[in-house]
């Protein structure tokens, strides 16, 4: 689990990639260039980047409606993602999926999902599949604190525990579900208590501390790969922006988000400080990585904007294999 300087730099770069991708998505949405809805991952970047940093390219993840961060963390191509947001033929889904349905089967991304809880069965199935095919692949199922109230979590979790499937249920407790705080909707005191009902270990981690996420998920992944079954991980974090781009955020005090944007709490700044303090990075280096991420995003936008729209006949393609 020791990380090289290059690896650490890459993690930092990815945090920024996500942050800047979503900043761009927000801007494009406000410019009416996107359709439907767009959900940003801002403030939660350390969860996806930390968790995916322990995965292999052939491992699986399932994502949610708030999926950009997960896909980028797993190695998704920002150009094809941005093109998808713009509904272009070069997008991951040829413009048919949009923000909520980005998938990259080649790197194990089994899709963002418009149904809250919709990825839970799929991720569990991918883990089951690995055991039948006799590989040591692992699956991470990302879902929100709101999603933890969907019954399929208990159903799939129970089977994962019974069959000792190589899966991590990674619940991002970002404190909101749509336009309501999430806590008043769960009868348990701590989310990890649910794990008891699913017959698996539960653990809570500071989701804004990338290395902590990496450690906890790393242990869970190691256990999963060794055939010792699933783990329920609760990553505590905060949804810094609105539920969707355009959400007027009338239902919470603005100071709350401000606190989470502060250098003490912001996951990127926290990780940056750690890199400087403990791993010998210079501020200039960090600045360089940040800029590099910005270039990648700029180039992705250019690529997306220059890409062609799908052809009318594409409507009828891809319904059946």
């Amino acid at each position: 689990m020791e990380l090289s300087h290059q690896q650490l730099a890459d993690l930092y770069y990815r945090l920024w990639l996500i942050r800047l991708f979503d900043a761009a998505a927000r801007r494009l949405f406000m410019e009416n260039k996107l359709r439907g809805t767009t959900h940003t991952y801002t403030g939660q970047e350390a969860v996806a980047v930390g968790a995916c940093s322990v995965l292999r390219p052939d491992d699986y993840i399932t994502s949610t409606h708030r999926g950009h961060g997960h896909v980028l963390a797993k190695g998704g191509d920002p150009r094809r993602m941005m093109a998808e947001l713009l509904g272009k033929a070069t997008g991951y889904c040829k413009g048919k999926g949009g923000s909520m349905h980005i998938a990259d089967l080649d790197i194990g991304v089994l899709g963002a999902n418009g149904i809250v809880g919709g990825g839970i069965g799929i991720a569990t199935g991918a883990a089951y599949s690995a055991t039948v095919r006799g590989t040591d692949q692992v699956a991470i199922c990302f879902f929100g604190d709101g999603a933890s109230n969907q019954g399929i979590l208990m159903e799939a979790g129970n089977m994962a525990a019974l069959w000792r499937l190589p899966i991590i249920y990674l619940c991002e407790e970002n404190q909101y579900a749509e336009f309501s705080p999430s806590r008043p909707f769960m009868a348990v005191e701590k989310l990890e208590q649910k794990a008891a009902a699913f017959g698996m270990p539960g653990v809570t981690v500071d989701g804004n501390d990338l290395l902590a996420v990496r450690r906890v998920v790393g242990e869970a992944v190691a256990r999963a790969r060794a055939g010792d079954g699933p783990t329920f991980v609760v990553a505590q974090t905060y949804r810094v922006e609105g539920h969707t781009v355009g959400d007027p955020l009338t239902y919470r005090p603005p100071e709350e988000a401000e606190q989470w944007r502060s250098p003490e709490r912001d996951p990127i700044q926290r990780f940056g400080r750690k890199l400087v303090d403990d791993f010998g990075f210079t501020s200039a280096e960090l600045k360089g990585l940040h800029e590099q991420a910005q270039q990648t995003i700029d180039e992705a936008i250019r690529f997306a904007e220059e890409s062609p729209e799908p052809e009318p006949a594409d409507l009828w393609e891809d319904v059946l294999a």
Partner: protein
Amino acid sequence: MRELSYRDALNEALHEEMARDPCVCILGEDVGRYGGVLQITRGLYEKYGEKRVRDTPISEAGFVGIAVGAAMTGLRPVAEIMYIDFSTLAMDQIVNQAAKARYMFGGKARVPLVIRTQGGGGRGNAAQHSQSLEMWYVHTPGLIVIQPSTPYDAKGLLKSAIRNDNPVIFIEHKLLYNTTGPVPEEPYLIPIGVADVKREGSDVTIVATSRMALLALEAAEQLAAKGIQAEVIDPRTLKPLDLSCIIQSVQKTGRLVVVNEAPLTGGFTAEVTARVQRQAFDWLDAPIMQVAGADVPLPYNGRLEMAAIPQVRDIVDAALSVCYREA
């Protein structure tokens, strides 16, 4: 007459019914403090409190099941399923429990439940947030299915749905919320199972549901310019269907176009076509034309989505073709 938006008309219906009957209650995600994602339940929480206006966790099967049990025991719940696509999570509760309880129990149960939900495409919400699933419910004995196309119909039918003693699937359309139209200040109800002739005409009958009714009216304008007088009928209630209204019109026009946004195969247009060809076979001067959605999941891209959903142009073309006129 006063103009209201479809959104406000629905909201007013809920306010009036909650004031009238203390057994009316609301359940759903973000319907309380926030007033509903689409703001249809705005102001109810403040007025009636959290017992009667329940914000629920994201648990569609659970809260719809609770609404069914509440309906069986004296309440008149109005449950909001935010997108009809999510009704898939509550199908057992809707189809096996709510729809069948009365029959299975030999007429002993009443299930005065309204499920308000919202369907249709056109906003780039893609395949899991744009479905038109009304036919599943039309195909299920024991349910009433309503799809209003105007603010006036929306208010009057929602009030009737709440007062009805059966489970009602009340399907709004996401592109209609901001449309406006006349809604009287005085209270009124619209009877369930009665179609509305939105425009009279003698050359061709166009039956169109939900948002498609508005498109059909636009099409009728264009047809009028070509000298074709289209009669536009909005069934409003898909089940029970006011077939006699449609048959009467077809007996007059001899020509029928049926428009519905859902995928063609197995859709509402097939149902109407089959009924009419049987009951008005001898009056038909041309095959009935179906204008329906493409048999594909709805795509995100705007151009593709437009192509997947019937447009005014498609309705005009279909009407011209049953009138044996060139497009």
